[in-house]
């Protein structure tokens, strides 16, 4: 079986995000970029499936500017077999990504698509679900355990109040949650091998997908700074403040 894994290039989770002075977005110049952590989990799961003999080939896909090649290279160094890069400088929304993935699926015919449940930059949590809808495939989101047979996947999902285990028919879409696995880092032999693996480049135009944004960003601002707390002398003082200053009681 072939596995398709989607990997997004995002600002590294250790970086302290700063809003651009003109409030059109966040600062990305000279900022460390990394693979979206949930996508790392997706790549790791794919590699484990391959190691267990449940899959034959892993194709890593990323979409965006030229720098995405580095993100794909990371996936290849972890153990993916080859990469596909959809080159575009347009900021992609989840629906555009899902449509691009659909076009790639038509060519690659994977048995399973694994994505992160969300990206840590826009936190949308939509792409996997949209892709399943566009493909009319079963979906299992927020996976914390994944077992494959030839025709089905058994997926344990993290849901409110517990775990839900479902069986879905393949081909299908799975999105990963934090507890699915702990991703490996690229070993040096794999880094050297990754040099020789191929990354095919294509474009939204070549895939015949319109990726123009449907949303307009009006303004990006920093979260309100937390005001320092204050120690009060007595319960009476607290009640007084709640009544007259905060006016909540």
């Amino acid at each position, binding site marked *: 079986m072939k596995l398709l894994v989607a990997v997004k290039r995002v600002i590294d989770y250790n970086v302290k995000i700063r809003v651009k002075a003109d409030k059109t977005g966040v600062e990305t110049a000279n900022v460390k970029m990394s693979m979206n952590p949930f996508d790392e989990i997706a790549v790791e799961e794919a590699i484990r499936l391959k190691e267990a003999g449940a899959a034959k080939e892993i194709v890593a896909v990323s979409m965006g500017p030229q720098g995405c090649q580095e993100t794909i*290279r990371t996936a290849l160094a972890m153990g993916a077999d080859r990469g596909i890069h959809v080159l575009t400088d347009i900021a992609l929304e989840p629906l555009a990504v899902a449509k691009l993935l659909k076009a790639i699926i038509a060519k690659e015919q994977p048995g399973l698509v694994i994505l992160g449940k969300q990206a840590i930059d826009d936190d949308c949590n939509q792409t996997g679900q949209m892709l399943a809808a566009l493909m009319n495939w079963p979906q299992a989101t927020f996976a914390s355990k994944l077992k494959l047979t030839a025709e089905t996947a058994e997926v344990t999902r993290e849901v409110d109040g517990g775990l839900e285990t479902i069986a879905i028919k393949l081909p299908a879409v799975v999105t990963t949650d934090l507890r699915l696995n702990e991703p490996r880092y690229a070993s*040096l*032999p794999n880094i*050297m091998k990754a040099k020789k693996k191929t990354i095919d480049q294509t474009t939204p135009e070549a895939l015949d997908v319109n990726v123009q944004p449907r949303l307009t960003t009006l303004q990006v601002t920093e979260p309100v700074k937390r005001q320092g707390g204050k120690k009060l002398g007595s319960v009476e003082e607290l009640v007084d403040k709640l009544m007259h200053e905060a006016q909540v009681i």
Partner: protein
Amino acid sequence: MDSRFSEEQNLLRDTVAKLMAKHCPPEFMRRIDREQSYPYMLYDSWVEAGLFRMPFAEAYGGLGGSTVDACIIAEEIGRVSADLSMMYGGSTFCGLNVQRKGSEEQKAYWLPRLMSGEIRMSISMSEPDAGSDVGAIRTTAVRDGDHYIVNGQKLWATGAGAKNNVINVYVKTDPKVHYRQGMSLFLVDNDTPGIELRKLDMLGRYCTGTYEIFFKDVRVPADRLIGGENKGWECILSGLQVERVVAAAADVGSAEGCVEMALAYAKDRKQFGRPIGTFQAIAHMLADMATEVAAARALMYQCAAMVDQGEDALKDITMAKLFASETYAKVANLGMQIFGAYGYNKEFDMQRHYRDARIATVAAGTSQVQRNLIAGLMGLKAQ
């Protein structure tokens, strides 16, 4: 991202940094430094990740990495600890010597063992009366059938006492001729009968350890002679460029570690109601530290690239080693100033850098000797 490096090299850096963060977090580093213990598990994790395979040829099971690759590894280890970078340097430098100067049988025997972590290696040249003046060594090896008998005393051997260490020892095989024609290199297991090791009480580099070695009638099989009898000096020379530039990379990494630590502290520590880093005196200190480290780093990677291109870079590399080690010593000293009393306290990490940095301008060739060499290569030969 730095355009000097390829995608794979960025990944390599990332992997080594993650490896260090996972297997050698600050509290672990503090503990092994305090206990003065050799971190065998950390070494094993390097083996497992393939760090020791990187610089060796694919024909012997290596990964065929470049000098720049080795510098990236040394820089990232050095960032955490100059002491620990010696564990990497020791095995790697000695192994590369075997790869350059050993026979096919010797390479096939030693290199896979080194890369798999079965053995590690250390270098032993210095003696009580032979420091900068390497030619003054007096330890001898005398042929006896299919063995050599080694006698003498070695000093300051980094890492020689670690488990399964193979000492790469330089001895005189012909004491009558000029030392360049009379030295030889032998690989001797550190548990060979007749060897006595003593860990020395040094000011720093506690984990790798610095040792004194006594050889008393130590029988070494003749097939452990590398590069041929009386060819020791050629072995030393053949490795000089790579060793110096990788050592410089470790110093650069350690210096970067100091600056990062001092910068974070200067932003955090408040006096007179504001972070001390907002006082111009401290801010400029940090600006200078960062500038000098960046310059040392640029010179070092330029040299590494020259080595990879097969250029004769000896002068530049010697400058890189000189400048990197002096920069490390300097920023560690300034780092102590920025940390105030906290720097002088052993619960904080700056004093470890301070201790380890102090010897960077002595070990592997003193700054004075590096300057002599640079001046010599500029046509200013000492009389």
